[in-house]
């Protein structure tokens, strides 16, 4: 493991310290925690607070999306480990400005349970808290007999949509309704060229040969659904877009937003080339996305690879929400 770190056990506190001291105009660290709240207090007044978070290792998520027009606070757990309820609870308190707090949680059993416990704590304080569990990763079966689909890069789009609504003073109930309406329209699928190395583990979660890739990995280097020889970007596009098509049944009359998300070690050069191939494939179906974003948004430490997210814009207002101006580090 070759990483620019100090003691692996100190990765999260040092990272959070570096982040808030580099960007005091956006973030303030909540005392005694590794949770961060928007430093522009005024921009939260009279609005529903939005809190997200999860294990660390997904930078710039989630703190990079804290700021006017997007999240109110983000909680950073240990690497790839859900934050604890007490930390989430502190973030909820900091995000609450009397209109209640909405939690955006990724569907991992740890996250779901810890955010639930935090909600229980906030209940005791009479802070009204509601939440959505994002499960956009179509790589895994969605069934009653599994944990359900994972929450991955599409979560960032949920942050953006709800952030715009909250900034425009939507109520907690309205935000909950919006989140539920948006949720089934966001779907993601990933491919990995290499796995992530958790600093404290010291070696990658799995190993791929020099010419192998794996489809359907999660953002914690969870193994995916198929391992193959490396293909061209065009061939990867076919596989990933095909999987998404069998969920969306892409139609030229409909509007879509598209997010190409780098996993941490994959350069923008490759992400742009992949975007070119996706846009070509869509153009062949007479589709041009109404909104596109390409870059590292929900990473997996130093994993190489990328994910492709589509978001069907079933409501015209959602495009406005995506284009709504924000002041954050990373959107």
């Amino acid at each position, binding site marked *: 493991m070759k990483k620019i770190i100090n003691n692996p056990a100190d990765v999260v506190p040092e990272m959070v310290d570096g982040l808030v001291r580099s960007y005091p105009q956006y973030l303030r660290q909540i005392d005694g925690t590794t949770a961060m709240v928007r430093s522009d207090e005024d921009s939260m007044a009279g609005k529903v607070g939005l809190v997200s978070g999860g*294990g660390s290792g997904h930078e710039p998520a989630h703190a990079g999306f804290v700021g006017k027009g997007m999240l109110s606070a983000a909680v950073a*757990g*240990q*690497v*790839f*480990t*859900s*934050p*604890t*309820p*007490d*930390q989430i609870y502190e973030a909820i308190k900091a995000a609450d400005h009397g209109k209640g707090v909405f939690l955006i949680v990724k569907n*991992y*059993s*740890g996250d779901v*349970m*810890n955010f*639930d*416990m935090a909600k229980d704590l906030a209940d005791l304080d009479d802070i009204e808290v509601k939440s959505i569990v994002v499960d956009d990763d179509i*790589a*895994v*079966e969605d069934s009653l*007999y*599994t*944990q359900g689909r*994972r929450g991955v890069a599409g979560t960032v789009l949920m942050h953006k949509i709800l952030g715009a609504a909250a900034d425009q003073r939507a109520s907690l109930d309205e935000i909950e309704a919006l989140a539920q309406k948006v949720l089934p329209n966001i779907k993601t699928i990933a491919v990995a060229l290499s796995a992530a190395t*958790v600093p*404290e*583990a010291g070696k990658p*979660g799995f190993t791929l040969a020099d010419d192998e890739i794996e489809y359907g990995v*999660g953002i*914690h*280097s*969870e*193994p995916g659904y198929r391992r193959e020889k490396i293909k061209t970007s065009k061939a990867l596009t076919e596989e990933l877009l095909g999987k998404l098509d069998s969920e969306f049944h892409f139609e030229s009359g409909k509007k879509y937003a598209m997010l190409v998300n780098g996993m941490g070690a994959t350069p923008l050069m490759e992400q742009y080339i992949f975007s070119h191939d996706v846009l070509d494939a869509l153009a062949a179906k007479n589709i041009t996305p109404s909104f596109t974003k390409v870059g590292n948004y929900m990473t997996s430490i130093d994993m190489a690879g990328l994910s492709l997210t589509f978001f069907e814009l079933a409501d015209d207002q959602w495009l406005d929400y995506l284009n709504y101006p924000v002041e954050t580090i990373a959107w």
Partner: protein
Amino acid sequence: MLNGATATKWLDLFAATIEEKKDYLSELDTPIGDADHGGNMARGLTAVKEALAKLADPDLTTVFKTTAMALISKVGGASGPLYGTAFLEMAKKSKDTDDLGELLTAALAGIEKRGGAKVGDKTMVDVWTPLVQAVKDGKLDQAAIDDAVNATAPLVAHKGRASYLGERSAGHLDPGSMSSGYLFSALLNAGVLA
């Protein structure tokens, strides 16, 4: 006899095992998880040990509650809320009884409620369920523990991270079941059952 002192001994023994088996637990969590179960548990149990060491002659409820709070605020991930809830439920129950069977039954109920897993889902519930029964029946021994842990290997996971692997989760021990096995072994060695 379960009381503040023997419970502390139980948890100190558990902490020592976790510290020793930290890397092994993370190794188990690698093929079917995210390689952090050892780190998570070690972080939590170090905090438990430190917190308990600060208590002067605590009662059973205080030991369990202190343990629960340390686990809840230090472990994170899936195992944090699960172990945390287990000890929180034991803390509540210990106000009425010091019967280990009843306490562990409450703990298991808490785990089930928090995580929604059932027997056969390849989670710690698969170890807790038979071993709580064994405690009640006065039949807890290392062989029973090993059997319960090893029985998770062939299962296909339906809860937790391992469930994303589907059929490929079979053939691997469940890490949370292994750490739960250590908890029951510590119980044996703490002499609480005597």
